[in-house]
């Protein structure tokens, strides 16, 4: 637990110049986010052969953007252990929900039919 980091909750501990250096970071992040948005949209107009590539690129950019928002705007890069633990658990369960549901919709008894009407 690193108590003497920048985001020490004690407001008075913040020297003003400290904050203004933060502000520069925020502006930088903002520009990066705009750039990411442009990239995402641009990617849409450039046609990739496979859907998989398109999806991967789009999600990759979205992940970077969300990393920036969470990391800098939400100060997650500089957060306390307790919050990390909560988020880690949440992330694990989210992944479990998505992946196990998807898996079970693909691992069916042999010769089962899906996606179709009941008539085989």
């Amino acid at each position, binding site marked *: 637990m690193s108590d003497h980091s920048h985001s020490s909750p004690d407001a008075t501990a913040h020297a003003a110049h400290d*904050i203004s250096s933060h502000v520069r970071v925020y502006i930088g992040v903002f520009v990066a986010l705009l750039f990411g948005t442009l990239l995402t949209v641009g990617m849409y107009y450039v046609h990739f052969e496979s859907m998989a590539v398109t999806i991967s690129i789009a999600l990759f*950019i979205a992940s970077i953007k969300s990393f920036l928002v969470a990391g800098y705007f939400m100060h997650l890069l500089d957060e306390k252990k307790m919050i990390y633990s909560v988020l880690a658990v949440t992330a694990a369960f989210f992944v479990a929900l998505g992946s196990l549901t998807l898996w079970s919709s693909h691992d069916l008894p042999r010769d089962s039919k899906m996606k179709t009407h009941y008539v085989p």
Partner: protein
Amino acid sequence: MEIPYTYKARPDTGLYNAKVGIWLFLASEIMLFGALFSSYILLRVQAPDGVWPEMRLGWPHGLLNIPIGTFNTVVLISSSVTVVMAWASLKMGKIAAFRRYMILTLMCAFGFLGVKSYDYNEKFTHYELRLKNGEVHTGHLEVNGKHPGFWSFADIWNLDRLTKEKVAEVQFTADPPKPKAGEAHAAEAGHEHVAKAIKRDEISRLEAFIPRNHNFFAIYFTITALHGLHVFVGALVMAYFAFPGSRMWRTNPEQFTNRIEVVGLFWHFVDLVWIFLFPVVYLL
């Protein structure tokens, strides 16, 4: 005894209460939106290949208005910056700057909602028309000389309603033939809109771009509406803190700053959801 750590950090966790609270709340929100995203993926993966609407079951592409979506993305990103700047202003003790940034944020929030409702309306007035001979068109509808569906659910037509109101014929302006996936709206300019009369009896299905039309719209409206609700609630709370709530600045600046941080966290989360939502429903 008073409740401790309402704004001072607890030494061993390094956190004040509301910060713990908001992160826990956001964790539950992750599961909420996560479940919706998972459902989206599952439904989409299970849908057979094929491009809607030519094939009833396929997952549609390029039906949403990308420029509008992009614009809204920029709006939300900007609002995230202004919120964090508002908080930074408080940290530096500048209440006036704080208020300016909050007003900017609110403008972004309501701008987002306004654009979003325009977007919704565009969908409500757009139709998918299936003919008994197997042809499928999308386009705009004119019934008895009126263009239906302006900001209103009740105006939306479907086959049942045509039958009930004994409409024998509708005028249908088909969209331009789709050039390539993804450029549906870009190409609209060069197209001449000619309405064609279509008999009620030729139609086998008539449905606006509303949730029941296709699961794509179902999920699109459900997630974006839920997201919009978050934007709306967040905006209300921020409006409160920007004006009446800011009295607290005079009595307890530290607690007030914390509150803005907490509100900001919520707002950034809403932004985060949109960052995924935009490519996933608009682009892919």
